[in-house]
């Protein structure tokens, strides 16, 4: 009897391509995506952190530090920007503290480094005193400040050893008395050589010179986000969106989870189209005054309204239970929610019109939605992925939707700043509806 049952089930599996897809292909697809997100493959370029640098010190030391940061392969140093931001005119202006803060708020750079006036007296202090370097950070990326803080320690150490020498000798003289003239001459001859050696090291490939810094990076990474880094360069992390940090992550996941389940809901509701094909109801409806375009429009409208309701319920729940700040973001939330729900509804119709049976829709939609959710950032924030994966995610409409929600809830962006996201969502919406209408032609007159 058990043998007969085994034969029946194995035969069923052999003849059911959807079941094979769900059993073998979906897990592999997920494994691949998460391996690309978290693993080394797919990182065809080294991940680089964009760092806006504001030099308020304007001394040779600060210039040397900026130069050393530029030489750091894991950083992209920005000291100038377009007037009026990325969408502004092409005239480049130096980045000041206000502009740096705005760049971080807009998500153009996860971090900005401010080299304050008096930097020369702050670096390489052994007493922990002096004005700290400031890292203006976006709390949505908790990793970047840790990485850059560590890199700063390394850069200061490897790029300016002469400074440490001077500081060390100063401390030595403070406690033991001045150097002899002969010692002073030796130091004066040695310091330029040390400086030129450091300049050569700064242009060398990341290797042995980086080793001391790696330890510093680890030390820095151990410190918590807002605490000043201990080490050779005193660094203070200043979150420019600090007050939103706790609820911001909640708003992100409210949107991420809502959009993922919106996709499942849209697929399920759109699947009623296939149920109606099977039951003959579609044939009957199309025999009446209702045409296919009207039918799809009706279903799309309903699915959009349902999607809006689903997202609203999710965010209201987040507001009541997790203190998500919904009420101060209502306009942006409303706009993003309507456009997201409308596009998701169109996507559901597209999937349903693509499939021939409900079982086929179940299999394909599970695969597609989970892959889209992984790529688009519903499962893991895109801004924490590698640049390659971040770019890959942009082929999914849910990535644009989530970017819009992040702009609204994290970056306090005005409605106008949502135009790129809304434009892309409208583009996807039109594409999905057009494809759904095209594929639905097979249910029209034979």
């Amino acid at each position, binding site marked *: 009897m058990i043998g007969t049952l085994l034969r029946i089930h194995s035969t069923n599996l052999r003849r059911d391509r959807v079941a094979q897809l769900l059993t073998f292909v979906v897990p592999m697809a997920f494994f691949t995506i998460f391996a690309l997100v978290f693993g080394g493959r797919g990182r065809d370029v080294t991940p680089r952190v964009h760092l806006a640098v504001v030099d308020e010190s304007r001394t040779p030391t600060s210039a040397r530090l900026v130069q050393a940061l530029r030489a750091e392969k894991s950083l992209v140093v920005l000291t100038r920007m377009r007037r009026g931001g990325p969408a502004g005119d092409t005239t480049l202006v130096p980045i000041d503290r206000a502009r740096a803060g705005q760049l971080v708020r807009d998500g153009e750079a996860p971090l900005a480094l401010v080299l304050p006036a008096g930097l020369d007296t702050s670096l390489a202090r052994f007493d922990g005193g002096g004005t700290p370097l400031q890292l203006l950070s976006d709390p949505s990326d908790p990793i970047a400040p840790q990485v850059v803080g560590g890199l700063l320690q390394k850069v200061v150490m490897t790029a300016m050893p002469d400074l440490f020498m001077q500081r060390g000798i100063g401390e030595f003289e403070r406690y033991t008395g001045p150097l002899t003239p002969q010692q002073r001459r030796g130091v004066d001859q040695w310091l330029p050589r040390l400086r030129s050696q450091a300049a050569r090291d700064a242009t060398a490939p990341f290797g042995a010179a980086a080793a001391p810094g790696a330890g510093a990076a680890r030390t820095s990474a151990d410190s918590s986000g807002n605490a000043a880094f201990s080490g050779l360069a005193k660094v203070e992390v200043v979150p420019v969106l600090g007050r939103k940090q706790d609820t911001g992550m909640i708003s992100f996941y409210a949107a991420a989870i809502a959009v993922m389940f919106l996709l499942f809901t849209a697929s399920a509701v759109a699947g009623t189209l296939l149920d109606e094909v099977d*039951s*003959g*109801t579609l*044939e*009957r*409806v*199309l*025999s009446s*005054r209702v045409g296919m375009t009207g039918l799809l429009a009706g279903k799309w409208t309903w699915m959009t309204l349902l999607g809006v309701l689903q997202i609203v319920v999710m965010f209201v729940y987040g507001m009541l239970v997790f203190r998500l700040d919904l009420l101060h973001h209502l306009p942006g939330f409303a706009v993003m929610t309507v456009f997201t729900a409308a596009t998701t509804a169109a996507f559901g119709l597209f999937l349903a019109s693509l499939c021939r049976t409900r079982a086929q829709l179940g299999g394909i939609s599970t695969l597609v939605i989970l892959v889209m959710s992984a790529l688009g950032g519903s499962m893991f924030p895109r801004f924490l992925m590698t640049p390659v994966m971040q770019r890959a995610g942009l082929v999914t409409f849910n990535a644009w939707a989530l970017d819009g929600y992040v702009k609204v809830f994290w970056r306090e962006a005005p409605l106008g700043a949502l135009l790129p996201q809304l434009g892309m969502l409208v583009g996807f919406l039109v594409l999905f509806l057009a494809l759904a209408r095209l594929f639905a032609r097979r249910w029209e007159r034979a």
Partner: protein
Amino acid sequence: MTVLRVQDAKRSFGTTQALAGVSLELGEGELLGLLGPNGAGKTTLVRALAGRVRLDGGTIELFGRRLSPTEARDGLGVVPQEIALYPLLTARENLEAFGSFNGLRGAALRERVGWALEWTGLAERAREPIRRFSGGMKRRLNIACGVLHEPRVILLDEPTVGVDPQSRERIYEMLDRLRERGVSLLLTTHQLDEAEARCERIVIVDHGRVIAAGTLDELVRDTVGERRTATVRLDRAPDAPLEGMTAGDGATLWSAPVRDVDADVAALLARVAAAGRSVVDLELRRPSLQSVFLHLTGRELRE
């Protein structure tokens, strides 16, 4: 008056010719049976009439006006073989939905829904989701959703399939009430006894063509002939075969063709008496639609 006329309807799907020149007419208030084996072309013809299949050739006229393949058939009602309803909606909600799809609004819709609930005998169950309904109740509602907008011609595809005899009777009572109003019905069915008993005229199609059309008497006369069959059951098996008669199941059952009922039956009884046997039972059977159908379409399975 002819309300629906199909002339030389042709339609092929790939290499399969589903309709090879079908012509038929439906009169006002008439119940016309459309019969044929599986794959004969009935469904394609009904779908073409409903505007769901384009014809390769031929014409369809409704109330004397030629229909284009794409135009709405407001004067036509379609009742599909499937229970094409929304299972989670109530009877009333289903009626309202299909009434709306067919252009009814406001008071007219409410009035027609009320009529349909009374017509189907579902008024007391109007607020129940139909998934709890019996097969017969769903069938009645299925029909009602196709006639809400008061079409004068209704296409019924197997409207009584899968229901018990009581529900079947009720459905035909409903259809009779429609006919009393002058509504014309085109009925496709495999229930030949129903077609024989209910339809005024019958059209038999096979291989995409009309192979016979007319009243039952006309079909019988033109195909198997009007010869009846007399069957007698004897008290005991005869000692020798009875002349001119054929033995049936068991040795006591004997049949013979009957042309003249008066003369032939009397002669048959005389032969039995001459053989020293008595007649326990006598059945006189005229040719049925079943015999006509099998005569025309053969006994080969269509799959």
